[in-house]
């Protein structure tokens, strides 16, 4: 790799956008080239200073109000007759659920960061220690029963080999002090760890992309379980994985 190539690619490396092969090439070049090494240090420093600078701004409350007013929905979810009725039907179940979700919302941020940190560590460990899978098979009907008795959930295991994500196997992990299932997939040379945990929030929410230590993480809930997909593939491919997984989990009606 030449200096000219490296000067551009080192930015992709700093941004966590390079695949493992190119990352190694850039790193190898930087190790032997004082010029590029200096560039790398300089831009890393710039990146850190920008991150520390808290350059993200907060929208003024007046703007938020202006926008909310412009919607035909009252901001406090004015309860319609229908939803009041539903409230009666659901009765205590609903209020308990709402109280629980409030509780969850309040305590979420701290715990979220810890959980995400654990997820990243578990992913990195699985790549380093050559301990990717406890049960190694591409057969979903072998992986799923393997978790029996090891967890108090039955994680859904779907084979997405035909869709471009090869099922490698399963593994037991500990996230935030809790035993969770990890289902391992491969996309080209990239490993995707899919962590499945219990205690998901009540509502189903769609996948949200987060980046931590250069890894992309998509987190969503379905069927009362919480899913975290983590990998070094780009955010879009990870989303594709999420969609394929979800589609396999909920086949269209009539299929």
């Amino acid at each position, binding site marked *: 790799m030449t200096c000219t190539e490296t000067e551009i690619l080192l930015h992709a490396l700093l941004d966590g956008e390079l695949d493992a092969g190119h990352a190694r090439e850039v790193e190898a070049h930087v190790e032997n080239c004082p010029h590029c090494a200096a560039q790398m240090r300089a831009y890393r420093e710039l990146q850190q*200073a920008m991150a520390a600078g808290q350059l*993200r701004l907060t929208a003024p409350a*007046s703007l*938020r109000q*202006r926008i909310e007013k412009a919607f035909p929905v009252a901001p406090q979810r004015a309860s319609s007759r229908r939803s009041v009725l539903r409230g009666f039907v659901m009765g205590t179940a609903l209020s308990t659920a709402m109280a629980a979700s409030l509780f969850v919302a309040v305590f979420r941020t701290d715990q979220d960061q810890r959980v995400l940190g654990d997820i990243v560590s578990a992913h990195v460990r699985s790549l380093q220690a050559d301990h990717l899978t406890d049960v190694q098979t591409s057969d979903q009907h072998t992986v799923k029963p393997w978790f029996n008795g090891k967890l108090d959930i039955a994680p859904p295991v779907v084979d997405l080999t035909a869709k471009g994500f090869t099922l490698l196997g399963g593994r037991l992990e500990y996230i935030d002090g809790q035993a969770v299932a990890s289902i391992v997939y491969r996309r080209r040379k990239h490993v995707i760890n899919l962590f499945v945990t219990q205690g998901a929030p009540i509502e189903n929410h769609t996948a949200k992309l987060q980046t931590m230590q250069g890894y992309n993480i998509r987190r969503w809930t379905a069927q009362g379980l919480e899913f975290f997909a983590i990998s070094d593939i780009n955010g*879009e491919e990870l989303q594709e994985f999420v969609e394929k997984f979800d589609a396999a989990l909920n086949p269209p009606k009539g299929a």
Partner: protein
Amino acid sequence: MAGNGSDPHQDKARRFRDAALPCLDDVYTLARYLLRDTADAEDAVQECYLRALRHFDTFRGPAIKPWLFAILRNVCRGEFARKSSGLNYIDQYVGGETDKDEDAVRPLWQEPQVSPETETLHQRDAQTIRRLVAELPEQFREAIVLREINDLPYRDIADVIGVPVGTVMSRLARARSMLRKAWIAEEGTST
């Protein structure tokens, strides 16, 4: 207004609100960096949300943030491009009128009123960085803001700007190189 929850318009508005409102700070941040003016940024963000609600039916996912950014970018480039005199200023500035006087540069980034007592060194640093970012030419500024401040992956930046990923990468490289030079020049003048 207050009425039946099954009204499709209200339903759409509610879905839009739940999806788009959490991105407000991000959209506002991008608007501030693109337009470099508080009042214009607020107007542009409001216009962006109204447009996004109107076109919410055409939103195909997966992520709403890049979609909102693309709309905001159109709003900024259309209506507000005329008003924003910043670009002319940049051209003059880059074109050799190298007056590095603080006051000459300041109008590019209008900081909302901050009382001097609460202004710590850290905040002053942030203000300096913001100004340096604001001084970058538009195409480099938007690339670096989308990457470093809004934390978008290259793929999404490429979608928002409408250029290939390779272009995103080279613009970022260029933006960082310019920013670093300006940063060093700044340290030279301020100390």
